[in-house]
């Protein structure tokens, strides 16, 4: 029995199942939480989940494959516009999300083979350029997108709390998908391919990983997730304009978040977005004039002191903490 257990523990499936169980517990908490929250806390939590999803999209490329898709916000914007246009044309939320997400995924697959030959900063800048080009199209094709005047969606039926719960449940579902993507990228065969690319692309290629295909597919998955988040955002806020949904600071924030939480981990993005959002929220309510300063200094301190993210920090110090706890009891 013990031997069996040991074998089970060392099998690759055990890790996945453990993470899946943890994810389910987390999702269960998210599902039962709303009645205890005021609409403000619910909105904050929705916002945390949205950022966690975007950060997971970033993590999928930058954390797991090692390609910093800095301009990933382009998919957020495309998703937002696609879904908003579909909803104005009378589609329901779910089909509209799909209509928003598919072009984003297609774009990732189309330009992936070109841009994914670039590495490091160069890839980052190429994605940034992609975002600028698409956002300029959204801002200038005013007959189609409304241009700079933006797109306004009709209010959904029901009260403010109905709308809040709808948005929340949408993002919880998307968050679940983002965790599934994380587990997939960490534990699947495909994920091994990703990590091999991150570690050493030439070696991966030599050992038979179809690197360009793996990278392109990973980017497409990242695009799908990010675009779906954009679509839900459009529904949630009810008004989008190019400068808002193609805003590079969304990408930068997502980048900070997944790094802070732990790159290439399943829960890193969530931890990062929780940390950053709580920091900004606390700063907002009390230090009106200084909150950017505080946030900026916090980020600098985190980089200096927690080089491998919050999860890495905990992992590094966990044995010591456990020993200390054991010693106490």
């Amino acid at each position: 029995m013990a031997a069996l257990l040991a074998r089970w523990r060392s099998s690759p499936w055990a890790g996945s199942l453990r993470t899946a169980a943890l994810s389910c517990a987390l999702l269960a908490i998210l599902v039962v939480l709303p009645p205890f929250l005021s609409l403000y806390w619910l909105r904050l939590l929705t916002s945390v989940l949205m950022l966690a999803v975007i950060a997971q999209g970033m993590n999928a490329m930058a954390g797991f494959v090692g390609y910093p898709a800095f301009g990933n916000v382009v998919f957020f914007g495309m998703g937002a516009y696609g879904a908003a246009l579909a909803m104005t044309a009378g589609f329901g939320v779910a089909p509209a999300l799909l209509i928003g997400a598919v072009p984003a995924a297609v774009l990732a697959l189309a330009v992936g083979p070109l841009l994914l030959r670039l590495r490091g900063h160069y890839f980052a800048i190429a994605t940034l350029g992609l975002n600028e080009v698409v956002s300029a199209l959204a801002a200038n094709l005013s007959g189609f997108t409304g241009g700079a005047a933006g797109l306004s969606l009709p209010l959904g039926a029901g009260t403010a709390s109905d709308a809040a719960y709808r948005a929340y449940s949408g993002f919880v579902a998307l968050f679940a998908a983002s965790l599934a993507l994380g587990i997939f990228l960490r534990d699947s065969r495909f994920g091994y391919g990703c990590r091999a690319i991150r570690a050493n692309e030439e070696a991966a290629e030599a050992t038979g990983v179809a690197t360009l295909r793996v990278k392109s597919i990973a980017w497409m998955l990242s695009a799908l997730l990010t675009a779906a988040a954009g679509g839900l955002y459009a529904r949630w806020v009810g008004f989008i304009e190019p400068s808002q949904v193609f805003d590079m600071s969304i990408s930068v924030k997502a980048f900070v978040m997944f790094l802070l939480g732990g790159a290439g981990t399943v829960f890193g993005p969530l931890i990062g977005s929780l940390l950053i959002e709580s920091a900004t929220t606390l700063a907002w309510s009390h230090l009106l004039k200084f909150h950017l300063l505080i946030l900026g200094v916090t980020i600098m301190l985190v980089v200096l002191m927690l080089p491998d993210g919050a999860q890495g920090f905990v992992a590094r110090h966990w044995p010591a903490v456990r020993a200390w706890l054991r010693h106490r009891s």
Partner: protein
Amino acid sequence: MQLVAQIVLNGVLLGGFYACMALGFSIVWGVMNVVNLAYGSMIMIGAYVTQMAVLQLGLPFAAALPLAALATFTMGYVLQRALLNRLAERSVFMTLIFTFGLNMALINLNLILFSADVRSLPDVFGRASFTIAGLSVPYGRATIFAVAMAMTLGLHALLNWTPLGNAIKATSFDPDAARLSGIDVPHVYALTFAIGGAIAGVTGALVATSYSFSPVAGESYTMKAFVVVVLGGLGSIPGAIIGGMLLGIVENLASLFLDSGYRDAVGFTLLLLVLVLRPRGLMGRRFFAEVKG
């Protein structure tokens, strides 16, 4: 035709400014692989120092400009020495995020110190223009172009004909070998960042007279620097000039022939093309950039 020639000339003048601005960004990135997202904020600080020197100390602009350069030089040295050097061994993304945080902090500090008002120095170079071959050249833009070119040549001389320049290049090529041959690497890094800072300061002084500035206005300069550096090639001085001019001319022609709303999009399309066709930039040299990926 006259119109096209005039627009191209304006593009060249603008490109000179872009080139000068991008140099500071380029050298820091090329030598230390640090993408300094706070670069635009350093330009803003240069602009504020210039404005204070002119309006409060009553200095002429020609004296305010070196003062701005000195301020951002010092700032750059201290930043690299005290903070960024600690991140030298870390992944490039960590420094990226660090400078992102630094940028936020600087924007907030500038807001507290100077308020969000949009400022500009009135009429340092006058409003007149002179004419060459039927094309008009405003004195203001011409002066900026001249300063930019002088800076570029100065930096070229510094890197190629001085011991410090050799030390910087050697460190950029291989920090470990440089260390072994007795170069004080942290000091060289700090000086490099300081030189980048000084260029930001000069750019800031130029921005103060011919554009306008406010705490949040720095980001558009960082973006432009990004594009110029990638177009021209990382760490390459001729590259910065060619990248800057190319961007200036292409942007202006886009404004002339297409809807002006597409101006930035055309610049970025060019960037994508260069990246796909010639990833190291038009003039990029291997040793500055690609070794570090």
